[in-house]
C-alpha cells in the first residue's frame, strides 16, 4: 500500500519521510524521482545502527542509467532497512512511496520533520508551472 502524498514530508532532493510508530520514521524516494531515474537495478543501503546526519549522503540508488545519492532527510539512527530491495530493486519503480521504502530511522529530534516540505510545496517544486 502506497502512502498518500498528503501524509508524507519531502526534501528538495526528492526523499520522502513519514512517521510510522514509536517515534520511528520511514524514508524513501518519491515517485517523481524513480520515474526520472528509470529502471532500478541496485540499491546500496545504510546499515542498521548507522548514525545519519541531515543532508548527508546515506544511500545510493542505481538505475540502468545512473547512480544517485540519497541524502538523509533528518538526523537520527537507522533502525531497519528494506531487505526486499536487495533482490528486487524494481519494487522501487513499482511502489516508490510504499513497498519501495529504503530504511527506517529513529530521529534525533522528531521536531525536525516540521522543517521538511509538505505535499503542496513538493508538488510546486517538481511541477512549478502546474496549478
Amino acid at each position: 500500500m502506497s502512502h498518500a502524498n498528503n501524509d508524507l514530508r519531502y526534501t528538495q532532493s526528492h526523499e520522502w519521510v513519514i512517521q510510522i510508530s514509536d517515534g520511528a520514521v520511514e524514508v524513501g524516494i518519491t515517485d517523481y524521482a524513480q520515474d526520472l531515474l528509470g529502471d532500478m537495478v541496485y540499491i546500496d543501503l545504510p546499515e542498521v545502527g548507522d548514525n545519519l546526519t541531515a543532508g548527508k549522503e546515506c544511500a545510493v540508488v542505481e538505475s540502468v542509467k545512473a547512480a544517485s545519492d540519497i541524502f538523509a532527510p533528518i538526523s537520527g539512527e537507522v533502525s531497519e532497512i528494506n531487505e526486499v530491495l536487495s533482490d528486487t530493486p524494481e519494487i522501487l519503480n513499482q511502489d516508490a512511496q510504499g513497498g519501495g521504502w529504503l530504511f527506517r530511522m529513529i530521529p534525533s529530534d522528531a521536531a525536525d520533520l516540521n522543517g521538511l516540505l509538505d505535499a503542496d510545496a513538493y508538488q510546486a517544486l517538481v511541477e512549478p508551472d502546474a496549478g
Partner: protein
Amino acid sequence: MNKRTPLYEQHQAMGAKLVDFAGWDMPLHYGSQIREHGQVRSDAGMFDVSHMVVVDIKGAGSKEYLSLLLANNVGRLKTEGRAMYSCMLNAQGGVIDDLIVYHMNDRWYRMVINADTRDKDLKWMRDTAEQASGVEIVERDDLAIIAVQGPHARTKVYVALGEGLKQKAEGLSPFEATTIGELFVGRTGYTGEDGFEIILPAKAAEFSWKMLAEVGVSPIGLGARDTLRLEAGMNLYGADMDESTSPLVSGLAWTIGWAPDTRRFVGRDALEQEKMAGPGQQLVGLVLQGKGVLRNHQRVTCNNNDVGEITSGSFSPSLRCAIALARVTMDVAIDSLCQVDVRGKYLDVRVVKPPFVRNGKSLL
C-alpha cells in the same frame, strides 16, 4: 530547439521519454529500458536512428579516396552491397569516428557516421578529399534510418514491408545490403542480434514504422540500445575510443586493413610505430562478481596496482549483473580477478574477452 527525426511524433504517441542526444530529441525509453532490452533479445525491436548521418561518396575516385580515409580496406568489398565496419583515423592514429561503409557500385559508396561527430567528420572528410580527385561528398539529410533487431526481426520485417522485400532481402548474408525500391536494407546492427538496418526516404519513415509496429515490433529507446551494444561487446564512440586512442588499444585491431602495404591510409604510420613498440593498453571486458553497478571512469586495480579505467559500464539486463569494457595495461590476463573502485569499495571483477552476449545467449 533540438532537431527532430521524421519519427518524432510517433515517439510521442508511443509514450517515449525524449531526451537530448547530440542536439536531437531522441527516445530514451518507452516505459522500461529493461523490458525493451529483453524484447530485442527474445523477439524483435525497432530503433529510430535517423539522427545518424548517411553520407554518399560518389565519383570515379571514390574507392581511392576511401582507401586513404579509412583504416579498413574498402578494396575488400568486392561485390555491390557488401558492407564493413571501419575507423576513420587522424594522423596520430586516434579515432575520429567509427562507421559502416557500404559498396553501392563502382562509383558510389555509402557511409553511416555518428550524429555527435557529424560536423568534425564532414570537415575531416572534405579536407582529406583535397588529396583525392573525382570525389563528391553528399550528405543525405533526406533519409531516415530504422534498425530492426532481434531473433524474429527479419521475419517480421518481411511481414510488415512485403513480399517484394522478402524476395530480395532473404538471401542477404551478414554485412550485406540490397536496394528494394526506395528502401536500402542491410543485414547489420548494433545489438548482437540478427536483423536489418533500413535506410529509407524520410517521408516514408512514418509509414514503415507504423507497419512494423502493427506486426508486433516494439519501439526501443537509446537506453536499451546502449546496454544491448555493451553486452554485444561493441564500442561506443566517445566512451570506448576517441581521438586520443588508437584502434590498437580499443579492441579494434581487427578493423585495420594492413594489407596491402602500399595502401597508406591516414594514421597508418602512427599505427605501425605503435604496433612495433607494442601497444601499452588493451580493451577487455569485466564482469562484476557481486551486487552493484559498474560505471564509466571507475578505476580498475589488480594486485593493488592501478591498471586502468572503465570506458563503458552498466548493468546487463540479460546477465543480471554489472558488466563493463575497460582499458587496462597489457599484463592484465583474461580470466584473472581484478577490482573496481566503486565509491571507495573495491569490488571483485572477472576479466573476460568481449562479447558478453550474442544471439540471446550468455558467452560467460
